[in-house]
């Protein structure tokens, strides 16, 4: 992987949360086209690391550089452990809001929701959807934007086997198309996924 496709350089990251050392001396160089699986026992700081990479959590030591043009958040799709959507609203309303925030005004949420397996549930308030369906609603964004970097926290949680397969192929396609995927899960996507171990 040549250096100019290097998207992320993290050097000697260390994070302490509530008096516990989560991780220390963590370095990571990620290039376009790669898919990173972040593994580690519960409480090892996987979610915290994702939030550090997404710029949501800034109390860490060490250096972190995104080699992306302009505001790195323009190229970032972050789906955290929470759905990121208001339960009172329908997937359509939520996605329209999220698209507008990311300047994707022309992106059509209908096909994306269909690919995420929510055909027929597009305008049902999230409160009436199952946990798996709620997860699919937030994962519908994988088919919406053209953000280069995806940071996903447990994307396969509460998703059935069929859903796992579709998401898996989507992640692989995105990496193959020159994107970068960083996700936490115990489920490996394809053979050449790179693993980042956290924990003691």
């Amino acid at each position, binding site marked *: 992987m040549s250096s100019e496709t290097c998207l992320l350089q993290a050097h000697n990251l260390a994070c302490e949360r509530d008096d516990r050392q989560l991780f220390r001396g963590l370095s990571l160089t990620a290039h376009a086209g790669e898919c990173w699986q972040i593994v580690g026992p519960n409480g090892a700081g996987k979610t915290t690391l994702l*939030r550090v990479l*997404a*710029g*949501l*959590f*800034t*109390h860490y030591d060490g250096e972190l550089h995104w080699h992306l043009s302009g*505001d790195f*958040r*323009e190229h*970032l799709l*972050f789906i*955290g*452990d*929470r*759905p*990121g*959507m*208001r*339960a*009172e*609203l329908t997937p359509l*309303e*939520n996605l*329209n*809001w*999220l698209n*507008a*925030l*990311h*300047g994707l*005004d022309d992106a059509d949420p209908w096909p994306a929701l269909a690919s995420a397996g929510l055909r027929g549930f597009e305008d049902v308030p999230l409160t009436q959807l199952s946990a798996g369906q709620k997860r699919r609603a937030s994962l519908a964004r994988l088919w919406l934007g053209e953000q280069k970097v995806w940071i996903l926290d447990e994307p396969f949680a509460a998703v059935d086997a069929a859903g796992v397969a579709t998401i898996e192929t989507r992640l692989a396609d995105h990496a193959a198309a020159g994107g970068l995927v960083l996700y936490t899960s115990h489920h490996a996507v394809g053979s050449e996924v790179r693993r980042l171990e956290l924990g003691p």
Partner: protein
Amino acid sequence: MTGFAPTLARELRLGLCARAEIINPLFFFLMVVTLFPLGLDPEPDLLRRIGPGVVWVAALLAVMLSLDQLFRRDYESGALEQLLVAPVALYFPVLARLLGHWLLTGLPLVVLSPVLGGLFALPAAVLDELALSLLLGTPILTVVGAIGAALTTGLGRGGMLLALLVLPLYVPVLIFGAGVVGRSLAGYDVDAVFALLGALLALAVSLGPLAVAAGLRISSGD
């Protein structure tokens, strides 16, 4: 692409489907105001003197209580996280959020205030000044209260803490707001006080959302 319009649209939609959030502050406002004549003495001269102050304190408490849950569901659902990760200056979505919330809670108080003014035997001439003072004042209360709400979002039950943080910040607004009607009842000219309220409003609208944005970042772990 400032995120203002979509957030305002979303906020109004959210507000309308959670109708209780609109009605509760209104009922609270009505009830608190009716307590005073019961607790004191319904004699018109007394009511006229305490009227503006009572209406203003009730409005102030109603706005503050409606703010306690302002960002909580956004925080718990992760929507707040998405707002922080979006490539957008937080000022605009926050301003839209506050405007939406004010339209659903502050404005109804303004519309209702002449009725309550009547309960306190306030002369008709003063009622429009009361309404105007609330029209200028309630947005300030919303913005300043939102700073406290942003800071207590991450905490479980912010209620009492929010009051402790925000009530001292409400004092100048209360003094000038209630003072307007008091002064005009006493026959003085009140343009200067309206100007002061307007100045506070300008300060709140311009700097407030920045403080709210900073508060939201801090509450979500920044």
